[in-house]
């Protein structure tokens, strides 16, 4: 391949429409005759629905229709919203898109109103009368898991949706004989994904064709089509799903939501285009949340810091219902808990518990940030207990580069890695020994510098179909058009990740066409062959690999076409620098465009070769990919105020081969910001009654520009052997790596105060309280 564009920081082709305000997000769609839906949501966390009276609503001027959950059931709605899993013993209660008998979280939809104007719909919403009979609530997952707790789903007889135990090696003997055992309870608080674009749906029914089109702010248009066809009871060919411009997803739009199903149903029922635009307050209530685990951790180590055993009890708060991947996410914590270290003896149990809260599901990292957080905290605790440097403990424990592919005690096979190299590079970049000396000196002045390390590995490029709850492959079509332009149809559904650019770079290099002549199409099930979508840092690793396969098929056919022209054997031809050439004779060459034209004309093709130059390929990944890296965070904590100032943030990441370094760095910047926001700022809070206390952007602390530091990034490149591009994934790595780096830094700063662990978010008040007993006049050193 020519490699003129691959690896270069090419400007994004997506941007002109975005920076000029000409892009079309769901809320920008306006169809003739379009009317507006608004959902009525439960103000209670748990209650029987006694009565829903929509009489006054229906009489309100401008209202076209109003339906309760009971109305939907009366209209024949039977299907539950989907959950994808392969767990034999999972308790999966029905999840109807509008609650009919009982509400189970604040924000659960109980009715929907359609009006000509969104303002009128809101007026009408004031006229809804719902009578509730309150029921006892289960909000705290630890209490919810106990016998006798109020039941979220009475029929199940328990709030425990599943328990998954796992053992490898001999953990009991290991812990009994260990030099040191460190125990820590670690809470991974609930987070709100907060894409700046909330959810939105525009659905249109074509009564003539009997076909519904749904525009949704989704990461998975094809999976959405499949699932909607099932819940709506339509043949799949009668559903078209379109993901227009999507304003951020972070996993929260990797789902099939009640509102998507109801709006599609309304379009059919009322035979009008229907729009629903979610408010931010609704989004906090009814978009999936992330994290929310309580992890009881124990680690066994030798005196030299070698970690030999890990015992975990993972309690995952699932929320009230299963959304698409709710039960699966916590199992990823189990799989990745050993992190970068070859811990042979593990004893892990994952327990998923229903509570009267919105469902948790995949949010940037999805189960892996929790794993990295707990193991990286535990390594620091081991270092502290043994009075060893945390970098040295990591150095002594890393999986050796020669050990790859490395199979973990939890059964994963890490593809490639060189953990020590990223760490040494990061330590050097941060001037680690200089920082330690400065820390020592500053402590004598009563100033508390903290240096935090996180050495992470994560599993992504989701994934081998056998290891996924549903299909893990993805697809690409490459079409050389008669005049030599190239159309790419990709099965992934980018929403900010920039594959319109990176995929065009790849095609331009490999097929020797100007990048301007490459069009990358995605996000419309009528245009693109089935694809699985964008999530789990899979876009380039899986979708890009499918594209690479399609390019190879095109090249092989183009060689046959050229060989026939030249009366040569195709084996004597090759692609060099994007052109077809005779091997060893650069004087004879043909472009892909020329071969494409011959393929179109059809009259000079070798016998038996079909006209046309296009190919559709699918890539089934033989394994996941495992990017890794080291993050170093330097903070100063003010003992008088508890304020954390991030002085420096250094990250050395390895995501394999890089197609566009500018885009890769952008992904890492954003990832780190989200991970550090968990460490310092963000937390979804429900009170004891299940009321959401963080229901707006004034209560939920998404960081502003001033609250995020400058990041210093470097890379190493360890290509994967899992796919033909050598790429790993980068969408989630920053988030996974950063949270423990920040928390470890703050805990390191607080070490003189005898503090070993505090739960996130590390807000000033919490830190000030932890430092107060000894900051009063006496300076610890």
């Amino acid at each position, binding site marked *: 391949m020519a490699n003129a564009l691959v690896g270069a920081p090419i*400007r*994004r082709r*997506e*941007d*002109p*429409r*975005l*920076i*000029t*305000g*000409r*892009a*079309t*997000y769901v*809320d*920008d769609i*306006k169809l003739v005759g379009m009317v507006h839906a608004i959902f009525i949501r439960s103000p209670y966390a748990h209650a029987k629905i006694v009565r829903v009276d929509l009489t006054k609503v229906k009489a309100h001027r401008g209202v076209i229709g109003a339906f309760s959950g009971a109305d939907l059931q009366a209209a024949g709605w039977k299907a539950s919203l989907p959950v994808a899993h392969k767990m034999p013993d999972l308790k999966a209660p029905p999840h109807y898109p509008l609650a009919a008998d009982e509400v189970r979280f604040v924000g659960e939809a109980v009715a929907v109103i359609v009006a000509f104007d969104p*303002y009128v719909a809101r007026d009408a919403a004031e006229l809804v009368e719902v009578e509730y009979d309150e029921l006892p609530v289960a909000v705290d997952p630890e209490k919810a898991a106990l016998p006798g707790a109020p039941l979220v789903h009475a029929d199940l007889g328990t709030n425990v949706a599943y328990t998954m135990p796992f053992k490898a090696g001999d953990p009991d003997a290991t812990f009994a004989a260990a030099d040191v055992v460190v125990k820590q309870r670690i809470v991974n608080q609930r987070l709100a994904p*907060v*894409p*700046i*674009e*909330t959810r939105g749906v525009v659905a249109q029914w074509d009564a003539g064709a009997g076909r519904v089109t749904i525009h949704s702010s989704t990461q998975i248009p094809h999976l959405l089509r499949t699932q909607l066809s099932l819940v709506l009871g339509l043949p799949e060919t009668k559903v078209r799903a379109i993901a227009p*411009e*999507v*304003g*951020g*997803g*972070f996993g929260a739009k990797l789902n099939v939501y009640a509102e998507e199903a109801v709006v599609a149903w309304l379009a059919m029922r009322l035979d009008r285009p229907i729009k629903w*635009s979610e*408010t*931010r*307050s609704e989004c906090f209530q009814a978009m999936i949340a992330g994290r929310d685990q309580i992890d009881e951790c124990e680690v066994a180590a030798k005196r030299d810091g070698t970690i030999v055993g890990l015992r975990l009890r993972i309690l995952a708060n699932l929320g009230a219902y299963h959304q698409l991947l709710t039960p699966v996410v916590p199992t990823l914590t189990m799989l990745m808990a050993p992190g970068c270290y070859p811990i042979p003896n593990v004893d892990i149990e994952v327990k998923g518990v229903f509570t009267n809260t919105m469902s948790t599901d995949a949010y940037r990292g999805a189960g892996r940030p929790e794993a990295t957080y707990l193991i990286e905290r535990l390594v620091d605790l081991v270092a502290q207990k043994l009075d060893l440097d945390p970098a040295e403990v990591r150095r002594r424990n890393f999986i050796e580069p020669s050990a790859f592919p490395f199979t973990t005690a939890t059964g994963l096979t890490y593809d490639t890695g060189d953990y020590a190299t990223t760490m040494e590079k990061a330590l050097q970049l941060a001037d680690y020994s200089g920082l330690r000396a400065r820390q020592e000196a500053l402590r004598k002045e009563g100033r508390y510098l903290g240096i935090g390390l996180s050495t992470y590995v994560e599993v992504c490029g989701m994934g081998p179909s056998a290891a996924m709850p549903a299909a893990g492959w993805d697809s690409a079509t490459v079409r050389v058009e008669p005049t030599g332009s190239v159309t790419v149809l990709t099965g992934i559904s980018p*929403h*900010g*990740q*920039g594959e319109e650019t990176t995929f065009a770079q790849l095609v331009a290099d490999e097929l020797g066409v100007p990048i301007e002549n490459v069009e990358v199409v995605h996000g419309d099930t009528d245009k693109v062959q089935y694809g699985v979508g964008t999530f789990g840092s899979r876009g380039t690793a899986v979708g890009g690999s499918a594209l690479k396969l399609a390019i190879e098929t095109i090249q092989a056919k183009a060689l046959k076409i050229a060989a026939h022209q030249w009366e040569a054997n195709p084996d004597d031809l090759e692609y060099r620098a994007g052109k077809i050439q005779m091997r060893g004779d650069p004087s004879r060459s043909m472009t892909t465009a020329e071969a494409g034209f011959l393929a179109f004309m059809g009259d000079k093709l070798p016998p038996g070769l079909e006209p046309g130059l296009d190919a559709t390929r699918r890539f089934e990944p033989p394994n996941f990919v495992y990017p890794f890296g080291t993050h170093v965070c330097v903070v100063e904590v003010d003992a008088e105020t508890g304020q954390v100032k991030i002085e420096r943030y250094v990250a050395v990441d390895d995501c394999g081969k890089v197609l566009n370094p*500018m*885009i890769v*760095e*952008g*992904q890492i*910047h*954003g*990832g*780190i*910001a*989200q991970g550090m926001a968990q460490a310092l700022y963000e937390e979804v809070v429900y009170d004891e009654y299940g009321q959401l206390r963080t229901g*707006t*952007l*004034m209560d939920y602390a*998404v960081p*502003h*520009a*001033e609250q*995020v530091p*400058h*990041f210093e990034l470097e890379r190493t490149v360890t290509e994967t052997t899992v796919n033909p591009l050598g790429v790993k994934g980068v969408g989630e790595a*920053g988030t996974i790596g950063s949270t423990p780096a920040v928390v470890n830094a703050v805990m390191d700063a607080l070490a003189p105060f005898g503090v070993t662990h505090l739960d996130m978010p590390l807000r000033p008040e919490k830190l000030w309280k932890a430092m107060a007993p000894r900051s009063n006049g006496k300076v610890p050193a």
Partner: protein
Amino acid sequence: MARIEVEVNGTHHELEGVEPRLLLVHFLRERLGLTGTHIGCDTSSCGACTVLLDGKSVKSCTMFALQADGRAITTIEGIGSSADLHPMQEAFWASHGLQCGYCTTGMIMSAIDLLGRNPNPSDGEIRAGLEGNLCRCTGYQNIVKAVRAAAAATAVESATRSEEPKRSGELVEVGGG
């Protein structure tokens, strides 16, 4: 129902039947079809809806359309087009200052206002100056870089072309009704 007169992106609009409670952002998006101004929250927190009112940034979700009566509004559509980008748009593109693009239009409008008040801001001043705008994708680093680049480009432009009149939104939009 009321009648308002506004100048939007250099085009004069007279509109009848404006509900007093209609928010400016809905007026721009629904009545004038200027959908580049986005809605990201309901508490004036995110800044996705930022436009310029008589040259100063405002959150259009926090104003009634009637409050804009007799005033001049500039939206993202009014500062440049893909064929003729505003220096701030160009800088966001060149610096990879956006990913999903949803906050971007409001961010660009705020950044233009920021440079209007402080033509040569430090990184810290840029971060502080954009406190009314949230971005969930970029971690802000490349946004800061973009604003710095736009400040430098604007300084060069004004040094070399100080005689030229200041750029204003001249894109003509069809008046809605």
